[in-house]
């Protein structure tokens, strides 16, 4: 039987490797709250990821931090009053030209009560971060 020539195999694997290297975005922060996003059908894609800052809301993963919904900014728990500071630092880290286009994505768990979300929205309004995105999973049709 003739042996199959496998000398091109590394090349193929390298090609796959480069594809995954390019598409990889490493998660920058570790979630300390549980976020199961709600579902919606009328969603839009967030195109420019570099312009998005995230606010996570959910029940802490470790029960010793309580069972109430908490806000996570960067890597730590925060209260709604710390949001202006967070937005300021997010703006600071972006190019001057991009600052007007920043979007705040609220990644909240679907079991969250609106009180927390309302507080976040009020703080965002105060600092002029008007563009927001309620992160939700795309489904073709919602069931009631």
């Amino acid at each position, binding site marked *: 039987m003739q042996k199959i020539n*496998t*000398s091109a*195999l*590394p090349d193929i*694997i*390298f090609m*796959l*490797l480069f594809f*995954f*290297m390019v*598409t*990889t*975005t*490493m*998660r920058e922060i570790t979630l300390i709250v549980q976020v199961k*996003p*709600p*579902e*919606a*059908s*009328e*969603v*839009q*894609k*967030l195109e420019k*990821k570099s312009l*998005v800052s995230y606010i996570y809301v959910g029940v802490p993963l470790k029960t010793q931090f309580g069972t109430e919904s908490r806000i996570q900014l960067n890597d730590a728990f925060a209260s709604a009053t710390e949001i202006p500071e967070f937005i300021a630092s997010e703006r600071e880290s972006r190019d001057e030209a991009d600052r007007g286009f920043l*979007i705040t*994505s609220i990644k*909240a*768990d*679907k*079991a*969250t*009560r*609106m*009180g927390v*979300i*309302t507080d976040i*929205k*009020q703080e*965002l*309004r*105060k600092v*002029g*971060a*008007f*563009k*927001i*995105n*309620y*992160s*939700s*999973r*795309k489904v073709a049709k*919602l069931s*009631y």
Partner: protein
Amino acid sequence: MASKEVPEINAGSMADIAFLLLIFFLVTTTMDVDTGITRKLPPPVEDDTKFDIKDRNIFKVLVSSSDRLMVEGERSDISTLRDDVKAFMTNPTNREDLPEKELKFIENLGDIEVSKGVVSLKNDRGTSYEMYIKIQNELTAAFAELRDEVSLQFYGVKFKNLINEDYRKAVKKAVPMAISEAEPENIGGN
């Protein structure tokens, strides 16, 4: 002479090394596309300015703390919300208790009737986020369908397939996304 030849490097394990790297990137890759409902928050109100909108132009949607829905003062259900909003905004029979229309000149569309209706959404602090998103979703869908109608009528394609930026602007002007959220307060209710 044969001893001067450079011996060939054995490249047999090259594939294994590449595989190892490949598996590492496969595992660490998160290819999640971020999707969500986009909204623009209103600027904060300085003083207690009352907005003068006629009662007939406001479509009131209230969500209680136990996720029940009240539309225009009556108990309602989310399954009918989309059609209710559409019927309200279009006001096909020009009823007196439904919103006024204003004849506006819009570039590329010409004179067109633009509804003055506004959907006012009010929720309790106890409302669940899931329900809130569902309602926002229905409201967005209602306006998207209205835009589709205008877009189909003038350009023969649905709004999302409309590519020309000027045409998109015109349709957006003809059907503005008129959703207003009330200042937060506790409305309670069961």
